[in-house]
């Protein structure tokens, strides 16, 4: 009988959904919870839900969630005896893990030495190769044209950052240099390595859980091939359409990886799978974002197991075999059609059905979200709003369930990738489980194709607006909306649909004391609910009328319509040729002066937001007539940065 530590209070050195996820298990186990939070997160749900919370002054991750010293001090101050790092931030920082241990606290994760070993991808591959795990490798010095395309990776990198594909041998040297420089600035380590790039391989990973008594569980596999810029978007367990050979190779390799590193805790071994061939990619020494799909099919609580193992308890028995199929999608505040631009704003509504942070009974939906109605989605952190997980008896039913949840989800206030996710779930290749890591890039255009103009939803918005205007009218509020004793023309309202610049106009009128429209029969209209009938089919819409937008949720999903104002004050009209800030950002540099001639595409200025640089270029040949900003200035979204007057074409 080994002695084990009692964990009484856990500090989560993280934020958002993962903090809430860990807290949920802690609460179930009767363990106290401690949050640390930045200033930007002061009002976040995870802070409110924690028993105690410690402020980390500032909002940038470098000032807050990445400050190991502050986190440990917070744990001491709040009386936490263990630290769970979540994922990202300090989760794979071996020094931090060591500092936690040195501070006399329990580190809920693998040993610092293991993290260290796996942190260098080059060392990790060497270790795996030595243990007999198949790896992909190529020496850039001896690479021949047949080895291309190659993938250049930063050894210290993660989450897709610092990766680049090289198609042409002549570019290799330059790309290596560039990747090295980028890695140095991003991770403080310029080591890069090269491996063959398998464009049509799948990304399959194996969840492992090991205790300090030598028991290693292989807790099944996951497919995470649907990725954008090497970031996972859709994940599922078990990996579908995987050959028995590949699966047993994967599981063996994962077990070998655990053995080779003396691994303790939860970890994920990532592989590329090409038919029956399996190649080790890397090992993540932490809980993965996508762990809920494994929890769904195994019924396990991986965080509870993490706590148990960290407390020195042994894993008992065998891991459960997967039952049914689970699929997760990551709901992001982003515009997939606009280069995945992160979106910011206030969530006027956030309603996604599902059990929060826990497996539903038998089959069903789960939602792990960091936000709620009223939350601000800001610029400081990752734009993931939630993970939505469906667990069904088989893959098809899980996909159907998940699509239903997305369709019924009411997320308003920021643009999201919901439509893209639904397009993926409906895609022929995806449904047939012909998965590979380039699938998203190949089909992005089709998946982000603007939908048919949502005429009925817009009509619902207009009718709800009409009824709202009546309800708030100072006089004659109870006279039928838009009443006319002499009919001349219908009323009209115009909206901008997300992803379109062309206003959508809908018309209606008062007929017999009720609102009516040529577009559909109006069965019911109130400020919050509109029922329409067309071709014998009735459709109900839930509507929320706002100042400048109307949120409509119907059977085809939820969308926010921007109200096109009736009047525009000419003094507020933005001059033609104005370059607007696409998001709140800081001005890095201004490349032009007023009066200067510019060519189409020429850089006018550079912005930085979300740690990404964004170049604002001249939309056409012309002359810069106004420059409104200078380097260092913080600008709001929509601010006029400069004006480029287009040259006459004649």
């Amino acid at each position, binding site marked *: 009988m080994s002695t084990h530590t009692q964990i009484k209070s856990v500090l989560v050195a993280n934020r958002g959904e993962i903090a809430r996820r860990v807290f949920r298990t802690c609460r179930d186990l009767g363990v106290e919870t401690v949050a640390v939070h930045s200033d930007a997160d002061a009002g976040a749900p995870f802070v409110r839900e924690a028993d105690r919370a410690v402020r980390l002054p500032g909002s940038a991750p470098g000032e807050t969630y990445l400050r190991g010293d502050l986190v440990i001090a917070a744990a001491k101050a709040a009386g936490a005896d263990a630290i769970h790092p979540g994922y990202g931030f300090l989760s794979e920082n071996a020094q931090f893990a060591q500092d936690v241990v040195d501070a006399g606290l329990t580190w809920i994760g693998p040993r610092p030495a293991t993290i260290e070993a796996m942190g260098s991808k080059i060392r990790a591959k060497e270790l795996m190769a030595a243990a007999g795990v198949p790896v992909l490798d190529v020496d850039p010095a001896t690479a021949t044209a047949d080895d291309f395309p190659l993938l250049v990776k930063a050894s210290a990198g993660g989450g897709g950052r610092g990766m680049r594909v090289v198609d042409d041998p002549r570019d290799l040297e330059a790309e290596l240099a560039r990747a090295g420089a980028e890695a140095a600035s991003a991770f403080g380590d310029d080591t890069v390595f090269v491996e063959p790039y398998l464009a049509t391989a799948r990304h399959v990973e194996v969840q492992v859980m090991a205790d300090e008594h030598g028991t290693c569980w292989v807790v099944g596999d996951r497919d995470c091939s649907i990725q954008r810029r090497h970031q996972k978007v859709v994940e599922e367990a078990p990996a579908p359409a995987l050959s028995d050979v590949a699966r047993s190779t994967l599981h063996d390799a994962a077990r070998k990886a655990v053995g080779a590193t003396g691994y303790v805790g939860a970890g994920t071994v990532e592989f590329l799978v090409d038919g029956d061939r399996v190649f080790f990619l890397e090992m993540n020494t932490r809980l993965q974002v996508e762990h809920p799909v494994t929890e769904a099919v195994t019924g396990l609580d991986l965080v509870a197991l993490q706590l148990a193992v960290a407390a020195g308890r042994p894993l008992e028995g065998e891991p459960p075999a997967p039952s049914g199929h689970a699929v997760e999608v990551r709901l992001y505040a982003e515009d997939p059609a606009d280069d995945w631009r992160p979106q910011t704003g206030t969530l006027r509504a956030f309603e996604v059905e599902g059990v929060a942070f826990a497996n539903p009974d038998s089959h069903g939906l789960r939602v792990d979200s960091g936000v709620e109605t009223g939350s601000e989605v800001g610029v400081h952190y990752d734009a993931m709003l939630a993970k939505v997980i469906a667990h069904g008896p088989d893959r098809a039913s899980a996909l159907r369930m998940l699509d239903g949840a997305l369709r019924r989800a009411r997320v308003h206030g920021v643009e999201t990738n919901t439509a893209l996710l639904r397009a993926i779930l409906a895609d022929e290749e995806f449904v047939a489980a012909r998965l590979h890591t380039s699938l998203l890039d190949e089909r992005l255009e089709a998946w982000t194709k603007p939908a048919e103009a949502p005429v009925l939803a817009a009509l619902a918005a207009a009718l709800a607006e009409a009824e709202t205007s009546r309800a708030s009218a100072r006089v*004659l509020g109870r*006279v039928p*909306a838009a*009443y006319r004793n002499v009919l*001349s*023309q219908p009323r009209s309202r115009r909206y901008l649909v997300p992803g379109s610049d062309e206003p959508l106009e809908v018309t209606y009128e008062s007929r017999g004391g009720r609102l009516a429209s040529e577009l559909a029969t109006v069965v019911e209209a109130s400020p919050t609910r509109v029922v329409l009938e067309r071709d014998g089919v009735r459709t109900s819409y839930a509507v929320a009328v706002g100042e400048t937008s109307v949120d409509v949720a119907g059977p085809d999903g939820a969308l926010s319509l921007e109200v096109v104002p009736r009047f525009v004050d000419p003094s507020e009209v933005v001059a033609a040729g104005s370059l607007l800030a696409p998001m709140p950002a800081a001005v890095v540099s201004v490349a032009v002066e007023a009066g200067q001639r510019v060519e189409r595409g020429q850089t006018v200025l550079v912005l930085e937001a979300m740690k990404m640089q964004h170049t604002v270029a001249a939309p056409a040949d012309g002359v810069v007539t106004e420059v409104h900003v200078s380097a260092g200035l913080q600008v709001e979204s929509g601010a006029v940065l400069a004006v480029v007057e287009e040259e006459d074409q004649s």
Partner: protein
Amino acid sequence: MTTETVTGPSHREAMLERIAALHEEQAKAVAGGGERYVARHRARGKLTARERIELLLDEDAPFLELGALVGWGTDFPVGGSVVTGLGVVEGVECMIVANDPTVKGGSTNPSSLRKSRRAAQIATENGLPTINLVESGGADLPTQKDIFIPGGASFRDITRSSAAGVPTVALVFGNATAGGAYVPGMSDYVVMVKDGAKVFLGGPPLVKMATGEESDDESLGGAEMHARTSGLADYLAVDEHDAIRLGRQIVRRLNWRKAGPAPRPDYAEPRRDPEALLDLIPTDLKQPFDPREVIAHLVDGSDFDEFKPLYGTSLVTGFAQLHGHPIGVLANAQGVLFSQEAQKAAQFIQLANQVDTPLLFLHNTTGYMVGAQYEQGGIIKHGAQMINAVSNSTVPHLSVVIGASYGAGHYGMSGRAYDPRFMFSWPNAKSAVMGPAQLAGVISIVARQAAESKGVPYDEEKDAQTRAFIEQMIEEQSLAFFTSGMGYDDGVIDPRDTRTILGICLSAITTRPVKGAEGFGVFRL
């Protein structure tokens, strides 16, 4: 006397036919100068009068167009080349007057004058701010004799309104020349549309003739000139939309408060389906119907407290509430007004004045009873009591002709000459000195008597022809479209809309305080 109300689908069909005819006539007014002129107007980048109004109104607020059929049955186009109505702008109930420039350039003919004078009267009586949407070529010169002298009142009323503390706004979209220039000239606030407004006393040809000076439109009366040089324009709008935006902005800053009693907000809708009203009303005026059923369709919760139900039963009187406003109702039940009915009305009107309650008159009367018995019973005296009460009543009156409105009954029921604040007719209504057949018959009898006294033989064949001709002419002239065309009411309305329209009127009325009469004329007892 019992009232038997016959209902049925035949009533409904007949009424729907009349409503369809009404829509057809209204469509003529809406069409303005017709497709060609509307297209030409639009091609100049201009909005039609009704488009301007629609933009000016608060979104989804009601608009009660008044006098849409003015001009019907005359030599002038239906609608009078001007659109008038009650609308809500920035939460303020306003009188909106918009020239229709597609009809002869929006020039004023006798129908237009009658219609806009009536709009001004409504604005004055109810204290409503007026917004003029101006684009008019001025007087229709061939008919200037009917316009020029009385037309001066238009400008007088604008400044009287201003003096009474009721603001006036002119949005000038196009021509406002000669006399028309005094519409912006007299208004409190003037917005002119750049490159559109043209406001001068005399245009380039007239100036050339008068003084020999060479000039152009812009220097004589352009919006920019008036905004920058003459100061006649307070606001320069870049386009028509902008002018309307500015008009709304002006009204928003009027800090307008209604001085009259506020309606109760929590009223119940009638316990009647408005559609059922059509089954109720015979279009044949000889068939009586129970006005209590009509009242039940009009008043809040169909809740009507009848006054003196057992006395003078040909006239129904009582108190109710309509869109939250208290109201007294007088409605003819059996057509004829006898002495009892007249006295009952006189008493009820005084009661309503005592408690500052507006009155609603529902006309369906063939007039005061005639015959020796009634004359000897003092029917004139009693009718006079009723007319005295109506004439001197100072609470607002609303009149709706829901059937016949003949003879002095029309007066006693607060007909047009008795200045009801608003007056409407149903499509089945008829107003005349008496029924067409009776009138023709009277003329025939008088002619026969004249022939007899002269001792000449009476031409029966000619008499029959004359009677038919007169009957047909009177029939036509007593129809709702015709009387509305003369401007004798504020519009012919779909009976189903009556409650809504009366609600809009009552709300406008309460812009000013409601105050009953302090005294009446001497009642002849």
